[in-house]
């Protein structure tokens, strides 16, 4: 079986996903085209070598709808010969785009592909694509649908993470992200967003709050208590996990992922394709997996999928040097570390989405890139990237430097 290699990766800085965010004036299409265009330029890539562009997007409607990948590839100058497809596995879409494209290369059916994701949350809006899962009683009732924040609170309650625990984790994420930026850990991989005149709109993750402290987090009110009470979702959570008497609503804006705009892409190819393009592989896609998990807990998929993937790859948790576990909510990562007993220093060493934000469709590709940069920076070999996913799923990928 051919290997799929990572030749390069690029991400945009993440803009605050609100009307006052720096990227609000940048269309989803323009945003998606940035990393594609940067990969082409940086690698002097001949578009004729590229077989496909796969982009994840979670709310692919309006300007982000109708297959944004093909449109972005055309805008990025890949010419009419490079097709595109958009996929959606909610929050893991960016990682799954990479897995999907890698699978084609590993199967020998494609030679080179770009994969990643894009999400303009400030312009399209979270949940804009609707969906039966939340609204159709035929699935919402049996699947114990509830907003993710309530699932995150349920995880904290079930597995015993207090408000102090989740706040401490959030403060650490901010600290690590600030340090990573100060020390230039992301420098190689960030492609600033510029306007038509070449003026920089954003060159740094806008959502970070390096001044965050336990005290400042402590003053924030729980975000999901009222929704749980008035919307009936608290009762749903308890019926799904009836050993619980009361949900402890520990999550708030400061220990949940930020809503941001952003895009990222990875250049993948076979050995031969890399040689043809004159590129040196940086890492190999070793293995990947997807799984369905308890839809009520919803966000514990990283635990289940990591078990599945390690087994599939014939590895143990100790074989992994660096973990990127998407910080959708603090309890997600705390549960991951609890389940495997891993050293917190190995997990999200450069901070995560609590500090820098989670641009849904793009994050998977962003954190894969972050993991690779970290392996290179520290001289280590193996990283596992995983994300929790709406409706109770998990996706994970293991990469290995070559």
């Amino acid at each position, binding site marked *: 079986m051919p290997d799929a290699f990572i030749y390069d990766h690029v991400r945009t800085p993440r803009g605050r996903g609100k009307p006052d965010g720096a990227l609000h004036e940048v269309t989803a299409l323009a945003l998606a085209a940035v990393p594609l265009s940067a990969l082409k330029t940086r690698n002097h890539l001949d578009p004729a070598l590229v077989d496909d562009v796969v982009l994840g997007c979670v709310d692919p409607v309006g300007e982000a709808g109708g297959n944004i990948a093909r449109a972005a590839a055309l805008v990025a100058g890949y010419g009419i010969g490079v097709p595109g497809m958009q996929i959606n596995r909610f929050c893991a879409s960016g990682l799954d785009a990479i897995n999907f494209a890698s699978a084609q290369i590993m199967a020998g059916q494609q030679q080179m592909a770009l994969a990643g994701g894009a999400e303009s949350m400030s312009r399209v809006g979270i*949940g804009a694509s*609707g969906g039966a899962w*939340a*609204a*159709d*009683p*035929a699935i*919402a*009732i*049996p699947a*114990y*649908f*509830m*907003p993710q924040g309530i699932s995150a609170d349920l995880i904290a309650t079930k597995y015993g993470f207090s408000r102090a625990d989740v706040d401490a984790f959030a403060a650490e994420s901010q600290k690590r992200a600030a340090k990573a930026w100060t020390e230039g850990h992301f420098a190689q991989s960030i492609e600033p967003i510029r306007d038509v005149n070449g003026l920089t709109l954003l060159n740094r993750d806008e959502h970070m709050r390096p001044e965050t402290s336990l005290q400042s987090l402590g003053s924030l009110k729980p975000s999901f208590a009222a929704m749980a009470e*008035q*919307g*009936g*979702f608290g*009762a*749903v959570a*308890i*019926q799904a*996990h*009836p*050993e*619980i*008497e*009361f949900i402890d609503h520990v999550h708030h804006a400061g220990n949940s992922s930020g809503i941001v705009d952003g895009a990222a892409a990875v250049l993948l190819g076979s050995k031969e394709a890399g040689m043809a393009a004159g590129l040196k592989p940086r890492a190999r896609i070793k293995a990947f997996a997807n799984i369905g998990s308890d839809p009520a807990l919803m966000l514990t998929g990283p635990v289940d999928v990591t078990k599945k993937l390690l087994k599939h790859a014939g590895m143990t948790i100790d074989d992994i040097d660096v973990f990127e576990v998407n910080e959708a909510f603090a309890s997600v990562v705390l549960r991951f570390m609890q389940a495997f007993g891993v050293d917190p220093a190995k997990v999200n060493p450069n901070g995560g989405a609590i500090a820098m934000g989670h641009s849904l469709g793009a994050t998977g590709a962003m954190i894969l890139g972050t993991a690779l940069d970290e392996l290179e920076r520290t001289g280590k070999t193996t990283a596992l990237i995983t994300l929790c996913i709406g409706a109770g799923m998990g996706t994970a990928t293991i990469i290995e430097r070559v």
Partner: protein
Amino acid sequence: MKTVAPDLTQFTLTTDADGIATLQWDMPGKSMNVFTDTTMAELDAVIDHVAGDPALKGCVIVSGKPDSFSGGADIRMLDGIAERARENEKTLGADEANRLFFEESRRLSLLFRKLETCGKPFAAAINGVCLGGAFELALACHFRVVSDDPKTRVALPEIKIGIFPGAGGTQRVARLVATGDALLMMMKGEPLKPQAAQKLNLVHAVTPKAEIVERAKDWIKAGGSAAQPWDQDGFKLPSGPVYSKAGMMVWPAASAILRKETQDNYPAAKALLQSVYEGLQLPMDAALRVESRYFAHILKGQVAKAMIRTLFVSMQALNKGARRPIGEPATSISRIGVIGAGFMGAGIATVAALAGIDVVLIDRDQASADKGLASADKVMASRVAKGRATEAERAAFLVRITPTADFSALTDVDLVVEAVFEDPSVKAETIKKAEAAMPASAVFASNTSTLPITDLAHHFSRRSDFIGIHFFSPVDRMQLVEIIMGKETGPKALATAFDFVRLIGKTPIVVNDARGFFANRCVLNYLLEGHLMLHEGVPPAMIENAARMAGMPVGPLALTDEVAVDLIHKILKATKAALGPQAVDPVQEAMLTSMVESHGRFGRKNGKGFYEYPEGAPKRLWSGLSEFRTQALDPDSIDIRELKHRLLVTQALEAARSIEEGIVTDPREADVGAILGFGFAPYTGGPISMIDGLGPNRFVALCEALANQHGPRFLPNAQLRAMALKGERFYP
């Protein structure tokens, strides 16, 4: 000019000088109009007639009954359709039976659709109650006017008996009313007053009773449209499309609230929600087909069958006197004595006075009796505050209750009910004192919950006039009363007790004398099971949640607190003293002894029980309960379905034993009694319906599996085993 459509037996059709027809619905020989096959056929003919006669401008539908429009579809007819479908399946095969059933079960829906699309304007003029299918008829009319009469109410109450509005109700309400309100209206099924209905946009006008027909005619004369809003171009749904920002504010929460309120135990509620969700995304005819499909599916289901039987047919039969002794003359109860002005006694006095009965409320001294009156007044004051009674009614109510310490006030009562302390000697003394004062024609009833009626009757010289009338707490809210027959209780006492219970608007079941009678036996089993689960190491919250998810209103630990931990402990001790140590569970006994004697935890009454009761905050399970567990089980390893089974099966089995022992003689009473008395999972139709629904053979297998796992308390009784072998059921 008067035109008469052919063969009208339930309706009269007249036409006025303006060419407006009035269709008056007045079923002969019935106090209330209901939809039957004949009604449908005649209404169908009327629609053709009105639509086809060019001289007619439109039609007003009105009731000929003085106080009501109609009670809706004949529930027995609906149930009959479902029964026929079950029969047809055996002879015609599933496909053909289903096809016939679908057609038959949507006749009313098609008829109403025909009415609203016939091309002539129809108006409903409503006075009095207008329920279910009748209100669905009104909704299909192009104009609805209701009278402002205090008796006028509109409602779609189908959900209460396990079905849902299936004649277009879900679609029309959801096209008239904002989605959240529409769902609430149909999910609760509560009657709406005229103004509330108008505020919701369910009716167009409210006028005095005498003007409803004129108001409806005026609307037709003014050119009222024969097209419903939803059949006109440019119609917009009141809450916008399902898949819109507004829709996303409603729909996810709708499913969550449904689960919160029903624990996903009521298929009809789910089907209702699904019909609205799907229907709002379709044009009307397709939407009605979708509603009909779900309606057929629900109508044929076990839950609807069981709920209709118990909560409609059986309850009505019991209320109408199915168990009143035949031939016993009607009794007259205008004045009663209540002895013991504590919580129960005051409650009994309250419900009696509310029903217009004079009450002598006796306690050991005037102050105690006055206290009883004060607590009766509290109930009434809260009714006034809620707008359910007037100050004048409250004054009249208070005059009916005479608090006193003097037994001689019993000289002219028709019935005495004692509710004194549950102590045999206190009871004995009370009975003797009462007998000395009361008329020789009056019946004596004890409200004891623990002492055998036959024994108490020994203190009364006229033993045939001695009976048990067992109320549930709180008396003003609990709908069930157990009438307890002592060995020597006679038919006159039963008739008197029965008539009294009906006078105060409650539902009686007649039970033979035995420890715990019927309801408390089942409840004690339920509590025991909860206590044993705690001992096994099931997390306390999981016990309580499993109980609620099984359909019980209150978990066994919370219920122990409500009843009082020390009272249950006392009952256990008394049972042990009377029947020997094997009659109680040693684990439970040790647990309750520790709760009461070591920890002073008596329940809600002293703010300390299985729960803590912090001031101004919701109660929380006591952390010290871990003392009672033998181990801490991993909740993810516990089968929640088994917990639910245990909590229901232990009660159902006790109900079956009660029938075998002759304590309850009619399965209808066991079912109605269990649902009204202690809230036994209503979706099952009651414990006996639950057994029948599963089939005794499967129920016996379930019991045996539970007995294997959890002990012989789950072993099925001989009668159940025999029924399982022979394939018999409790209900025909």
